[in-house]
């Protein structure tokens, strides 16, 4: 896709493009037109992008013309109520599902034209909740991350072992390598899955509600870990305050369409929360670094008496 295509196909009425030229820190405060120009400046090719992707299932529209282009190194939060298309968008981005229309590109090349193995060397996925009946320890699970890098019949290379050690160290699991998967708590399992994803040595990390079923401490730990990693992350989240605290940019989906995007400060307004979630909220600016903090007051229309 050429630069001109990118300019014309982008929907300029929404805040578009995440200013890939500026890297992690530079993702803040980019308005709509400016964002598009930044995309053009960096070349439309860099990283993982969805361009006007749609997907239907059983005649129902799940995603309708969604575009996202996370800046390299940034953490992008996907928000939206249940059924808004967050998980489907992540599955399209990982190439497990194919879009009905539109295109997902990785460095400018359509994902559909890449082999599963090549994709897995670039993009790692952490699913919502995972379990297995197989007897595995932490090390076994993290080693699975080397699958796309290894050939049949060959023992693990020094590079494989190094990547596994590194992933365990980053996630603070080095001393639990031999603990059985089945004895781990939910938070620990998610941490192990992130270590497994890191062992893939990805540049893009996709996480689908990774904090579900975790206690507060583990939620914060996990997102702090994700944001500290030197990868581009796209995280589907339910908790608006967690999203405000940890994400560089937010994309809000409702019924398969993007209804807002930008920094947490721009996106998380009382109006948007009322419109998208049907919830009355008070948004203050007293989060860390002046980030928004959402306090829920009740539903917009109280439930009708039975």
């Amino acid at each position, binding site marked *: 896709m050429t630069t001109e295509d990118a300019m014309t196909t982008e929907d300029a009425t929404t805040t578009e493009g995440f200013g890939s030229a500026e890297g992690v820190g530079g993702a803040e405060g980019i308005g709509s037109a400016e964002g598009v120009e930044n995309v053009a400046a960096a070349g439309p090719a860099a990283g993982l992008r969805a361009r006007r992707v749609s997907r239907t299932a059983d005649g129902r529209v799940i995603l309708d013309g969604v575009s996202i282009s996370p800046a390299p190194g940034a953490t992008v939060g996907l928000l939206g109520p249940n059924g808004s298309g967050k998980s489907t968008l992540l599955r399209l981005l990982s190439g497990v599902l194919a879009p009905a229309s539109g295109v997902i590109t990785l460095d400018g090349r359509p994902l559909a034209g890449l082999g599963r193995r090549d994709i897995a060397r670039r993009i790692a996925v952490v699913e919502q909740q995972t379990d297995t009946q197989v007897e595995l320890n932490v090390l076994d699970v993290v080693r699975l991350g080397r699958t796309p890098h290894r050939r049949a019949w060959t023992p693990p290379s020094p590079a494989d072992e190094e990547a596994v050690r590194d992933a365990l160290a980053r996630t603070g699991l080095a001393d639990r390598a031999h603990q059985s998967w089945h*004895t781990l708590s939910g938070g620990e399992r998610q941490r192990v899955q992130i270590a497994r994803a890191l062992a893939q040595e990805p540049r893009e990390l996709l996480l689908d509600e990774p904090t579900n079923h975790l206690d507060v401490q583990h939620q914060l730990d996990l997102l702090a870990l994700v944001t500290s990693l030197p990868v581009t992350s796209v995280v589907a989240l339910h908790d608006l305050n967690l999203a405000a605290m940890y994400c560089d940019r937010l994309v809000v989906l409702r019924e398969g369409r993007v209804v807002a995007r930008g920094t947490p400060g721009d996106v998380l307004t009382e109006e948007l929360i009322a419109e998208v979630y049907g919830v009355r909220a008070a948004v203050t600016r007293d989060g860390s670094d002046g980030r928004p903090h959402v306090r829920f007051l009740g539903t917009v229309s109280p439930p009708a008496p039975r």
Partner: protein
Amino acid sequence: MTRPRVGLLCAAGAALLVASVAVAITIGPADIGVGDVWSVVASHLGWGSTELSPIRDGIVWQLRLPRTLLAAVCGAGLAVCGAVMQSLLRNPLADPFVLGVSSGASTGAVVVVVLGAGGGLVSVSAGAFLGALLSFGLVLLLSHILGGTTDRVVLSGVAAMQLFSALTSFVVMTAADAETTRGVLFWLLGSLSGVGWTDVWVCFAVLVVTLAVCLAYARTLDAFAFGQDAAANLGVSVARTRLVLLCATALLTAALVSSTGAIGFVGLVLPHAARALVGSGHARLLPVAALAGAVFLVWVDTLARTVLDPQEVPVGVVTSLIGVPVFVLVLYRTRRTR
């Protein structure tokens, strides 16, 4: 838990297998020693001559050796198929027969034996093989139509199993006399009596090829631990892997079943026993499961042909009689205490 070195374990298993085959051959009505076995084998391989009488030579070379070797090949093959199926379909109850292969084979064999299909040109083995492939094809088609997920494969297999069992019973009940029924029943339960060198070589060749394919996919199979999507996200092309491995294991099962009938339980139990021994990594699991299955079936068949001597018990009956308690014991020892 520390896991034993897999190389060491395989070497020990191979030694145990050779010793088991040699000793198992000596057991039986005709008095033959291990030394006799070696000298017969050596003479047939052209390394010297044997002083044994032609009859005793024949008992070793024509009867007991092919039978024992086929037991080993069959045990190894069923265990490998079971291990692969259980991982691929993420179902600890999956076994080589879950794809309807054995029931299809039974129907094929019964149609040949009872109805005389093929006019004597088609052997029982060939009929069984055709039936197995037909049934497997039906399962693949059904599971594809029904959505192609692993649970659909298992359910299609169960459906095919029921269908072909009913067909088999129907043919036997309506067309067979008592004597034929007894013979068919013996075959259905699995038996290694009367097998020849052709069976051994065919099954051995299919086993080697299938084992090589499965070992090449060992790492891919590991990646299925957390399900198909997780495997896909680890770079596995799920549909191709499943097709290759289902076809390979179905072919091996079809080859084994058409020579020996449906020997149950080996493919279900031995993989679990092997996992308890070396863990679930397939590069270690598959060779160990193969050796364990081989040794297991050699001894179970020996028991089956001697315990009620001169009458023979179908080996499938003995595998289940021994297998169930062993299965419970293995599961008990590896039960999860949280």
